[in-house]
C-alpha cells in the first residue's frame, strides 16, 4: 500500500508508512524570514489591570 501511494498519489510521494524511525524532517519546508517578519504585524493583549466589565446588554442569549 505504501508503494502504491508513493507511485500513484501525487501528494503522497514522500509517504513512508510508520512515523519512525525516519520521520519527515528532511522534506518539510521551514519558515522563511519574509513570512516570519510579517507575523509581528497583528495581535495585541490586555494587561491584567486593563480588564473591565463588558457591556452585557449586547450578549444575545441573555436577552
Amino acid at each position, binding site marked *: 500500500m505504501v508503494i502504491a501511494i508513493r507511485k500513484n*498519489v501525487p501528494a503522497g510521494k514522500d509517504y513512508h508508512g510508520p512515523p519512525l524511525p525516519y520521520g519527515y524532517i528532511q*522534506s518539510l519546508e521551514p519558515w522563511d524570514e519574509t*513570512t516570519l517578519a510579517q507575523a509581528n504585524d497583528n495581535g495585541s*493583549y*490586555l494587561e*491584567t489591570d486593563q*480588564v473591565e466589565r463588558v457591556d452585557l446588554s449586547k450578549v444575545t442569549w441573555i436577552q
Partner: protein
Amino acid sequence: MASYEEVDVLIIGAGPGGAGVAYELKDTGAKIVCLEQGPWVTAPEHPHYHDEWEIEKQRGWAYDPNVRQLPEDYPVTGTTTPYMMNNVGGSTVHYAGHWPRYKPVDFRKGTEHGLEGTIDWPISYEDLAPFYDRNDAIYGISGLIGDPSYPDRKNAQRDPMVLPGKLGLKYAKASRDLGWHWWPSDNAVITRPRENREADVGMGNELSGSPTGSLSTPAHAHWPYNVRAGVDLRTMARVETITADGGRATGAVYIDRNTGNRHEIRAKIVVLAANGIGSPRMLLASAQKGHENGLANSNGMVGKHLMHHVFSFCDSWFDEPVEGFKGSFGSPMYSHEFYHTDVNRGFVNGFGMQVARSFGPSYAAMGTHTGYTAPWGEKHRDFFANHFANHLMVFMFGEDLPVETNRVTLDPDVTDSDGIPAAHVNYELHENDIALAKYGIEKIFEATRAVGAVETNDTGVLYPPPAWHLMGTCRMGNDPQDSTLNKWCQTWDLPNLFVVDGSTLTTGGAVNPTSTIGALAVRAGEYIKRNHDHITSQRTTPTM
C-alpha cells in the same frame, strides 16, 4: 491492615500536576511517595514503528479509556467522550504537545463578564509568569519568542521552532492575507537533543506518546530525575481513599494492583493530582465521618464547573499537496485573532484557530476528523488520490463557560476493577459556547477559502466535546464559598491537602491547559518547599 508507613509528602497521580510538584521537592530531603495506578509505558510499547500504527488509535492507544479498557483505566459514564491516559506521565502520553499559555485576561474573566459560574483567578498572569518560564525549561519547549498577542516572555527558553511544512505555511498565508494575528506555535517537542531524549524528526504521531523522548512529557522530563533524586514512584498503585482526621488529611489507602493487597500511607502533606475527572472522583469517593459529602467538599463545590473547551473540527481540501502526514504534532501555528471578547458578536469569550497535522492513509480513507469517508468500490481510488495529503484541519478551539451543572459525580452503579465507583459526567453545551463555535467555523473557512480550498467539511459544534481538557472541578478562588482551593492549591477544608492538576484551573481560556497546569505545579511545589513546617501546623487554610 496491621501497619502503615509514614512519609512527608504523598502525591497521587504521576501526570503533569503530580510530576511537577515532585520535581520541585525532589532535592529537599523530604520523604516523598507518588502513587500512580498505571505502569511506566516503555519505548517498544509505542505504535510508532508498526505498520498498524493508525489502527492502534482505535484500540490499545485509543484516547478514550472506555474504548481502550486497559486494566489501569477506570470507567467514565455520562454525557462525555473522556480522553485521558492512566500511567506515568498521565494523559500527556497521549497529548499533542501544543503549548500555549493563558493570556492576562484569562485570569480576570469574573471581572470581564462573570457569567454563569465564572469567577476571577486568585492570581494574575504576572504572578504565574516566572513559573511558566521555569516549567518550560524543565519540559523542553520549541517555539519563537515575540508573539505580540502575549506579554513579553524574554526569560522563556526555547528550542528552534518545529518546521511548518506546506500545511503550516498555507494557513499562515491565509491569516496574513486577511490581516489576522498568527504566530508559530510553542510545542512540547524538543528540536535539540537532551539527556536520554532525541530531537524531533517531524514524525507526526505525538498523539500516541513518543518512544524517543522528543515529545516533552513528565515520563521523560520529570520522572527519571525525580526517581534518581530519591522520590519513591510506585506504579500500579491505585488510591482507594484519601484519609482524614478532623481538619487534616492523614494519608491514603491504596491497592497494589500487582498483588491486590491494600496498604496505608500516612503523610504530613497530601497532593492530589489525578486530573479534572480523577481528582473530584477521589475526593467524593473519600467521604468519611466528618466529611460526609466527600473530602474538601463542605461547600458542595467539588466536581462542579467542569470545562472541556468547545470544539469544532474544520477540514479543508486543496487541489495541491498539503502533506499533513509530515511534521510534528502539536501544531505548526495558531491564530488568536478572535481570542478576546467582543460583545458586538453577541457572545462573550473567544476562540483560537489551531492548525493540526493529519495522520496517514487510513485516517484519510476513514473520514479524517469530520467523518468525510471515502466511498468503497470503484470510486475509492479517485477519491483517495484527490484527498489524501491535500487536507488541512483547523481546530475551532473556544472557551466554554464554567457552568455549575456541568459536573463530575460518582456513578451509583458502575465501579472500576477494584470496586471504586466510576466517575459520572454531566456536560451540556451552553448557548454562549454554541454561538461562539458557529462564528469560529465561519472564520476558519473564510481563511482556507481565501487560499484556495476546493472542498470543506466540519463537525458542527461537537457534542459531547472531545474531552481531552479536564478542567475546573476543584477550582482555585478568592472565596471559600465559591471555590475548592486557595491561591496555593490548598483545599479550603484541609490545609495540608492540595489539588494540583487540571481540576485546579478556575477558567479554561481558549488554549490547551498543560503549560498552565505545569506552571501551577512548580508554584505549588515551591510553596510547599518553603512552608512545609508551617503547612503541617496550619489549622485553617490561608485566604491570602
